[in-house]
């Protein structure tokens, strides 16, 4: 029985966003008997709706509202209006993600302490650590059915993985496997095992990959405690004279505006929209935006040090067959400043179909240098770099003074400059990635620049002290007790790990905290 709550019901917890953060939080709260309204800007799409065609799926699922870019990052040059490749649909970017589910390494919770002072970086330790997070990670891994955890076996390696493994082992790397993936290696959670179909980025038509869209959301709805309103774009969060938030104004599919009252508001709109909403909610009492006494809302935007390496071989690889992110080399994720940078990086297989390869292999490239690469598409293997980037105060989401969205609200501008540490890491990763493929017999390799960001992090960061960040150890804003942040924008630092598992673990933990505080009448 799907719940339906009144706009004036101020006893509900209002969650803005339904992805790895919001979607999981909504279900976890609903399971505990908390009444929840979840608003999602996009529509609702299930496995039968997903399209295994890159551009068609991109048009169906992507967040394509007006955005601008600035800074020296390559994305601003290649994709100036598309800083991020994320999803606008119920379930959010868990529809698009590849499934890699890696815990932070213990030292990655304590980047400031481990790395020391890094000029130009706004490093800070998380106020939580590996020991505190371990039980929440266990719950998250069980929820997602992560391979190589619990009793879930690893996935079999596809052709793309086998090439990576051959080269990596030849180079002497030891930590090479098909990784920890939120993709069923056996039937689990009433969902089938992976059928090696490819198109993980376009939504898994089998439902073998975990996505909030067809797991946590319907499970939460089945409790009768969760109402999800799709095509509901939140415009503004309001507060009372005591400075407590009272609910949010949103526009429905027809553009009609409604105000949903709430006891608690949780923002989980991804690291671009979440700070944008806080900034767009500025008021007389909070002229710099909500929860922004530290001035850190929108700052410290991180996107991981990324890039890809593609290699061409003498014989066919057919990398598109099977799991998109089919394997990983983890040796470089260690902390080892002797390489010339702090932080580490993972190397993970990745494949693109022919249409996206044309768009992303060398954006702007043309002529025979480009087309001879495309001619060898069938003989290509591919990998993606995921490394820890440095938080910088000046890398930030701001409100555009010129561009407005369809609701006439200022669009977000995403400013990013690579830190010298980011550049040193990317160069090292390109060299190692190319060496892996050479060791497997590649005749040509390509250091492909970053795609629009799928890992958007850090713009409402967690901190021990109110002066240093936006939220406390529970994701509760330092300034407004009944306002929470529930997505990757909480990240104090980004680690070298794909962020979804940590977002999910934090959401499960936050649900525990919110429901306890609600029953103690503290919220």
């Amino acid at each position, binding site marked *: 029985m799907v719940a339906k709550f009144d706009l004036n019901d101020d006893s509900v917890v209002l969650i803005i966003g339904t992805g790895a953060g919001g979607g999981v939080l909504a279900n976890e709260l609903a399971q505990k008997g908390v009444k929840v309204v979840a608003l999602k800007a996009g529509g609702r799409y299930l496995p039968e709706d997903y399209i*295994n*065609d890159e*551009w068609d799926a991109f048009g169906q699922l992507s967040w394509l509202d007006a955005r601008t870019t600035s800074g020296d990052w390559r994305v601003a040059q290649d994709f100036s209006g598309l800083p991020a490749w994320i999803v606008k649909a119920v379930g959010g970017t868990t529809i698009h993600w590849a499934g890699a589910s890696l815990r932070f390494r213990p030292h990655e919770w304590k980047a400031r302490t481990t790395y020391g002072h890094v000029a130009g970086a706004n490093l800070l330790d998380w106020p939580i650590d590996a020991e505190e997070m371990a039980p929440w990670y266990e719950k998250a891994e069980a929820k997602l059915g992560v391979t190589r955890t619990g009793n879930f076996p690893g996935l*079999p*390696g*596809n*052709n793309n993985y*086998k*090439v990576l493994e*051959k080269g990596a082992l030849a180079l002497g790397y030891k930590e090479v496997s098909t990784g920890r993936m939120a993709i069923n290696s056996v039937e689990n959670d009433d969902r089938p095992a*992976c*059928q*090696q*179909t*490819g*198109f993980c980025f376009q939504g898994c*038509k*089998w439902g073998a990959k975990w996505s909030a869209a067809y797991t946590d959301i319907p499970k939460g709805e089945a409790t009768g405690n969760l109402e999800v309103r799709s095509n509901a774009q939140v415009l503004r969060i309001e507060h009372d004279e005591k400075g407590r938030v009272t609910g949010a104004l949103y526009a429905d599919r027809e553009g009609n505006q409604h105000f949903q009252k709430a006891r608690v508001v949780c923002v989980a709109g991804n690291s671009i929209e979440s700070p944008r909403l806080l900034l767009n909610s500025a008021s007389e009492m909070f002229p710099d935006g909500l929860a922004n006494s530290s001035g850190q809302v929108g700052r410290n935007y991180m996107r991981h040090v990324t890039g890809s390496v593609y290699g061409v071989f*003498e*014989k*066919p*690889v*057919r990398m*598109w*067959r*099977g799991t998109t992110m089919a394997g990983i080399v983890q040796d470089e994720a260690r902390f080892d400043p002797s390489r010339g940078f702090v932080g580490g990086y993972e190397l993970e297989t990745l494949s693109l*179909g*022919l*249409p996206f*390869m*044309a*768009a992303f292999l060398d954006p*702007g490239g*043309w*002529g*025979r240098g*480009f*087309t001879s690469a*495309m*001619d060898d*598409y*069938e003989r290509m293997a591919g990998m993606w770099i995921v490394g820890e980037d440095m938080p910088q105060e000046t890398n930030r989401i701001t409100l555009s003074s010129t561009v407005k969205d369809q609701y006439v609200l200022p669009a977000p501008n995403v400013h990013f400059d690579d830190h010298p540490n980011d550049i040193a890491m990317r160069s090292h990763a390109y060299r190692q990635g190319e060496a892996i493929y050479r060791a*497997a*017999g590649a005749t040509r390799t390509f250091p492909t620049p970053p795609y629009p960001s799928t890992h958007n992090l850090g713009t409402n960061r967690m901190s021990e002290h109110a002066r240093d960040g936006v939220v406390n150890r529970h994701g509760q804003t330092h300034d407004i007790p009944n306002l929470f942040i529930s997505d990757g924008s909480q990240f104090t630092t980004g680690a070298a790990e794909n962020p979804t598992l940590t977002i999910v673990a934090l959401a499960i933990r936050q649900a525990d905290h919110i429901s306890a505080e609600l029953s103690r009448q503290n919220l």
Partner: protein
Amino acid sequence: MTTKPNWRGMTRRQLIARSFAAGTTLIVGAGFVAAPNAAWAYEAAALKPETLATLIRMARDIYPHDHIGDAFYVTAVKGYDTAEAAAEIEAGIAALNAAAQGAGHASYLDAAWEDDRVALLRGMEKSAFFQKIRGGLVTGLYNQKELWPLFGYEGESFSHGGYIDRGFDDIDWL
């Protein structure tokens, strides 16, 4: 292809008989552009046939794939053959021809060596016109499903049950 039914079955001799200007690789006729072997023909709607022929040549010079027929390039650029787009395309191609003449060629199409034509394109690489044509080709050319098998790309596999039993790990040369 948008090949008009009335071009089907036309012989090379018939095509040439109706043409008034033959480019190096395309036949340009009164209101149409065609392949010399009559494999296809395209009737221009808003662009001059010579302009269309130059645009097709330009598209192939930007993304040359020698194993891909002209028909794919025609499909990729035919969206510009509209009343709204024609003025900009005619101006862009006129600029390209002017650059060719400045380099001693009668026209862009008259520059017989690809290297010479590519040098002309490099000279206008930053122009809005070049970037529009190049950017449009990224999807206009490579997103044609009929073209994918020519690169070995298999497209969707869900309808075949994925690759679990169809070679996801069949690499045999490592």
